[in-house]
């Protein structure tokens, strides 16, 4: 009975695999630098710096893959919001996640080829990919070339302000990722969405 939709083309899966790999590396090395401690080393500091730099460059490159893919294939259309009905759509989807899901109600926005995301997914993906990510990436690259940063701003070191923005936005990205991974367990079976991201085919409920 389960129908299969080809939702995740190869380039997208490739991007996503790289992205997840790089992001986890960034997360672990980032935390280990920020909370570096003589007594509790997580990753050796210089290795963490190098790892973080490499993964940062990698994730930026793979981001261009994501942008290019979405510019030149139909996948980009999945990221268009219908502003007029946005609020009520979000409410409907929110209500489903908070209540309907427990009584196996039918989701208000079933997955189709034309619209594979529900409104909450769409908004959070846009937020993560087109707002948070650029900020983290730009501040990250600035920190890679600290000479480009203003020495002083508002009485603080410019590097400090840049780093704060980088860390806070990175933190929000991590929160996004945790929620994202959890929400991906909401599928036909808890693992089916992860399989989809590997073979490209979505299994409907």
């Amino acid at each position, binding site marked *: 009975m389960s129908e299969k939709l080809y939702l995740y083309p190869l380039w997208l899966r490739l991007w996503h695999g790289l992205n997840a790999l790089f992001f986890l590396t960034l997360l672990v090395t980032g935390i280990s*630098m*920020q*909370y*570096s*401690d*003589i007594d509790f*080393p997580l990753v*050796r*500091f*210089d290795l963490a*710096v*190098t790892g973080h*730099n490499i993964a940062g460059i990698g994730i930026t490159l793979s981001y261009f893959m994501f942008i290019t893919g979405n510019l030149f294939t139909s996948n980009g259309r999945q990221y268009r919001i219908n502003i007029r009905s946005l609020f009520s759509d979000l409410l409907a989807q929110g209500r489903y*996640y908070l209540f309907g*899901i*427990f*009584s*196996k109600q039918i989701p208000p926005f079933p997955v189709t080829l034309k619209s594979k995301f529900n409104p909450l997914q769409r908004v959070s993906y846009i937020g993560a990919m087109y707002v948070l990510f650029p900020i983290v990436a730009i501040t990250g690259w600035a920190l890679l070339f*600290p*000479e480009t940063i203003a020495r002083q701003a508002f*009485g*603080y*070191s410019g*590097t*400090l302000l*840049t*780093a*704060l923005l980088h*860390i*806070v936005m990175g*933190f929000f990205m991590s*929160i996004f990722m*945790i*929620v994202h991974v*959890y929400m991906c*367990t*909401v599928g036909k079976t808890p693992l089916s969405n992860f399989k989809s991201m590997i073979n490209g085919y979505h299994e409907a409920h």
Partner: protein
Amino acid sequence: MKKVLNLILFLGFTFWCFAQDHVNSENRIANRHCLDCHGQRVYSFVNPDDGSTVRKLMPVDFRVDSALFYTGAHHIFKCVDCHVPEYDSFPHPNQLRFEPMYACLDCHGGDDTYAKYHFETIDEQFQKSVHSPETLNGFTCWNCHDPHSFRINQRTGESIANTIAYDNAVCMKCHFETGSEVMLLLANEKLKPMSVSHDWLPNQELHFRQVRCIECHAAMHDSLLVAHLVSPADSAVKQCKECHSRNTMLLSSWYRFQNIENRNKNGFVNGVLLNEAYVIGASRNEILNILSLILFGLTLGGILVHALFRLKMNKRKRHE
């Protein structure tokens, strides 16, 4: 309003200049003779044979920058307080080349006025350092403390950025990429270029701008503000964590003798560092730490509750 302020500033500055000038005026007049030649790139003298004026270039190593001289630690001196008065005549008599020079301790040793500097301890540390005259023939305190310009910064409350720039310039006078000519006089062996000996350090330029050489190369001493025991390179700090961590050693070297409360600023643990630098791992904000822990906890909690409900409903469904 702004004009009045500018006027006050201008008058204040003029007054300050006069006051400075008064202290130095006597010396300035006495020194003018020497600086007419040593303070210039081109000096001139009258040829006694035919009365003509001869112009020559002053060799770089014999130049004394008068602006730096009068802002240096020893600005109150006349040239001839340290140099023999016979230098008044030109050409300088030959035997003056062998004039013995004062050492710091000749004036500062055993003097209570300078007790807080611990000159004797500094001297002990220097004798044990890699630059000691025992290992490097002819190396003295003057090699780092340029007699005609050196000043102190850390004790006088100069900003950290300026102090770092000054102190590192002292080392880099000899230890820059290719090494200075002075090294020909002093060195036993050729050192590697700086970028090679520090190739393990990322963002080299930034580090050399934001951290002092002595932080990594000289061991602290309890009673000294500025470490003077420069040790062989193989015992230098190479562990990033010495600086990039909560208990960064930068705090103890920069803020020794300063009150600890100063360190807490707007929730930043190592607050004092902030105006000058952002040191990964050392600059931390308690408030942000707590906020992020709460947010993280709420997220995980929400997910946990949601997951539990899903499990429960699933079971119930299966039973039905």
